[in-house]
């Protein structure tokens, strides 16, 4: 979320604080629940996928034994085909603990890291609905250097500059995440960027003078596909559109399709992460 979007959101929060809000009942059009697919191909890790379902906007969720059944879509046949082989993902609930991520379909094979490897996702739902998607592996763009500089005006505050070298022969898309303390924390920076207008191979990502000595900074640069860039941007615009009266909402731009009318993303997860403890 950039500065342009922060001002109206702050204004809405201010209005809420001024008691200018009230609960209202509104009728929305009929909505048919849709399957939601999240499948990130992280080199060296097993093929994993979260298959869940969307809700009508005002549906209530009960946190009882039916919660998982109501949310996750089980009983589907999920396969990923690449390099002439097919990995069938087993319907099994697993989780990473830090940061917490859950999956309900897990494969046997490890995701290959070779850039350009093509992957095809096929899902047949229990009700016969079909979902397909395709993507290819991205090359890693490493972080060249991370520089911490302290303010000449306030010497207790520092900033962090992160440099990468961009391949200017093709259009590249990046996602930048900056977390303080832990990867489970809400990111201080989360934005998408394209190199379309970069006049130099060197690209810098910076912070303001906001770091103190001893801070731990998790600094991640994802090299992403155009489809992933469009999907995440549309998710961010949809979220902002719901908070900001000046913003135009966006429909979700998925790269999975099929008779099941899915929402979702099938994309490689290629990133370089630097962890720095700020020192003078």
């Amino acid at each position, binding site marked *: 979320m950039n500065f342009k979007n922060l001002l109206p959101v702050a204004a809405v929060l201010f*209005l*809420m604080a001024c008691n200018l809000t009230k609960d209202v009942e509104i009728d929305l059009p009929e909505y048919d629940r849709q399957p939601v697919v999240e499948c990130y191909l992280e080199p060296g890790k097993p093929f994993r996928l979260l298959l869940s379902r969307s809700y009508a906007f005002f549906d209530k969720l009960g946190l009882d034994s039916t919660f998982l059944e109501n949310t996750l879509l089980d009983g589907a046949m999920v396969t990923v085909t690449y390099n002439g082989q097919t990995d069938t993902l087993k319907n099994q609930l697993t989780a990473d603990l830090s940061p917490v991520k859950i999956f309900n379909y897990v494969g046997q094979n490890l995701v290959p890291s070779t850039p350009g490897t093509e992957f095809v996702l096929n899902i047949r739902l229990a009700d016969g609905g079909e979902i397909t998607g395709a993507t290819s592996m991205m090359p890693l763009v490493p972080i060249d250097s991370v520089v911490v500089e302290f303010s000449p005006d306030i010497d207790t505050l520092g900033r962090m500059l992160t440099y990468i070298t961009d391949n200017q022969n093709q259009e590249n898309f990046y996602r930048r995440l900056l977390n303080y303390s832990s990867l489970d924390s809400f*990111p201080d920076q989360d934005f998408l960027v394209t190199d379309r*207008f970069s006049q130099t191979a060197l690209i810098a990502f910076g912070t303001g003078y906001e770091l103190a000595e001893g801070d731990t900074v998790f600094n991640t640069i994802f090299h992403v596909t155009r489809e992933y860039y469009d999907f995440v941007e549309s998710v961010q615009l949809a979220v902002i559109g719901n908070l900001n009266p000046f913003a135009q909402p966006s429909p979700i731009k998925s790269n999975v399709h099929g008779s099941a009318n899915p929402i979702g993303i099938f994309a490689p997860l290629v990133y370089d992460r630097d962890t720095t403890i700020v020192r003078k």
Partner: protein
Amino acid sequence: MNYSALLSFFSPAIVLSRTVVLTALWTTAGLLLFPILGSTQNATVSGSLRDRQNGESLIGATVQAPGLGKGNASNEYGFYSLSIPEGKDSVLLRFAYIGYQTQTLKVLPRGSIKLDIELVPVGSLLEEVVIEANGLDEKRKSTEMSVSTISTREVKALPALFGETDIIKILQLKPGITPGSEGTTGLFVRGGNNDQNLIVLDEAVVYNANHLFGFFSTFNSDAVKDLKVYKGGFPAQYGGRLSSVIDVRMKEGNSKKLSGTGGIGLISSRLTLEGPIQKDKSSFIVSGRRTYADIITEQVNRANEGKPDYNKIPRYYFYDLNTKVNFTLSPKDRLYLSGYFGRDVFLYKDPTFDFRFDWGNATGSARWNHVFGPKLFSNTTFTYSDYRYKIENQLQGFSFSLSSNVKDANTKVDFYWQPNNKHTVRFGGNITYHDFITARLKAGSDDGRVRFEAGRDYNGMEYGAYIADEWAIDRLKINYGLRLSMWQNNPAFYANIEPRVATNYEVNNRLSLKASYARMNQYVHLLASSGLSLPTDIWYPSTEGVKPEISDQVAIGASYLLGDQILVTWEAWYKWLQNSVDFKDGAELFGNNELEKELSIGRGYAYSPLELEIEKKEGRLTGWIGYTLAWVKRGDFPEIDNGAWFSPRHDTRHNVSVVALWDVHKWKKKGKDKSLQITATWVYSSGYVSWLPSGRFTFQDVPGAPFLTTVPYYGPRNTFRYPAYTRSDLGIVYKWKKRNRFENDLTLSVYNATDRRNPYFITIAVETEKTAFGEIPVEIKAKQVSLFPILPSLTWNFKF
């Protein structure tokens, strides 16, 4: 309804070659002139009509020869001309204007008679000098329809948000015009978009007539003389926008004596000085306005400087400066020079962050009025317009800037020719050079190792030529004309013919029936990322890929004079829009050199069977009641909902406005003149249309990214309608004056007097519970956010 068939009926293929277009124009000119030149010779009375107290020209004042049943009105420069049959007997002439004493004169009708008339304002010293357009009966008799005028008297007296009187917000109270959003100066005229209004200040285009993200307009009511809006039936001299023409005229300056006005309000102060440079020959006016919230916030920041937990308040202010001088060079020549400069500035600066965002307009006009003779008058104008915004951020060693700019340089000549009382001919032309810088982005390190650049420059030439005649045939008046407009932005070239016709049939001395048709073309388009006006919206020219927008509007109506003081006007209209421009879903506006790829081109229509206005302009109680029943649609955008038709945000079905100004009492006490006036407005509008999500899903995202428990899923556009909007405002104006001293008034303005919570925005609140999988949303609630509660404000105004 098959709109394509209807549209094709009204719009035969219009993009023509230059030869065909010019031939058509001159042929039409010949057809116009043939009946005019065939008329007989008369004596002609001509001259100017002005205010005796300050020398301001009177627009729309009437000159009549009651014994002959002939009459006419002064044009926008106060010039009039009346032909009467030559004879040996004197003819009585009557000069009249609302709020002024009627003046009568006898003239011997022979040859050319020049009469410059000064009318005296009526009433006591405390009354505002009422400068209003046509009297109601003149309005009824005119071929002009779909026209509204706003007087400065109404603007200054009516209640206003934060006490900031605003001529554009009063305009929103007229039928057929909606604001698009509460509190803003948006203008959605007869279903058109906010960028489809040609707003001109002394004939120079104002591209973004807003301050503070649209909450206030750029027009300082102390400097404004007159505002007229055309919602349809556009005269041929206007072109370039589809839905309305808003013609704002600045005061000329008091040519009799030095005078001033000013005021101190809740958020801004104003000061205007005007006076003669050479009495009755030349005058000046300088008017300024500035907000001062930043002066208070800067003091707060200073008081808290150094406190560790204190977050500095950003600085924000806006200001306007209007200036004008005019010179009477000779009895036949008058020169006007006027300018406007306004800026909004948003600043934040501390040792760690340096941010500046400023935007604003600058306009300049030079106009030369020349009277060739009693029947021919000309106005030659040079205008310059500049709208720009710039966002700058400096951070040691790095900088960022984003800016856009649109500049126009325009030359225009208009002729006003009245060969006889049956014909009034206007003809002229203009050439405009447009220069656009769209979303210029520069970012990088000071040492040049890192550099981002984006943005493109465009330019275009816009040409216009027109001729129109108003022909009076007994009870029927017909104003028929043609405008040729052309646009060149290499390699794109467009030429379009825009027919204009308006008629008035006077059934009797109370009832007139009217009809009009007008085609308009728009060659510049506002790329707005939402329905609201933001300073960062970009103006974009017509190109090979983005064709000119076209509108066709037909209107019929009737005006009935009830008694002597009330005019009831009914109109019904239908408007078709072609080549409408909208963004594709999720379009990228900034840092994009290929903006056209983000656009979708479609169509639209709007219609109203009932647009009603009941006006009362004279007496102790004045005001109007307006009602509009209308439908507005957009569609056929291939990339938006697969071309489905949808309602834009401003498709509000019913709109009602009631505006009342009541002069309660005038009295004298202890040598002071005093008066009390109560004003009120009441508005009702069906709810705005909104795009709300139909579903939601959970997005856990990649490691390090936030777990989004509620991502809205947006289905078809604009399927939800907000609850209806109602607001009542009240004003009390108390004036007093000691003889030969300042005139003062205290104006109490109560915005939203009933403290009603109107819907501004609906947002979603999510109630979550913690589980092993994180925070899970268990209940979603809709929350209506309102913008303004009851807001009283007090303004002190003075005049000397």
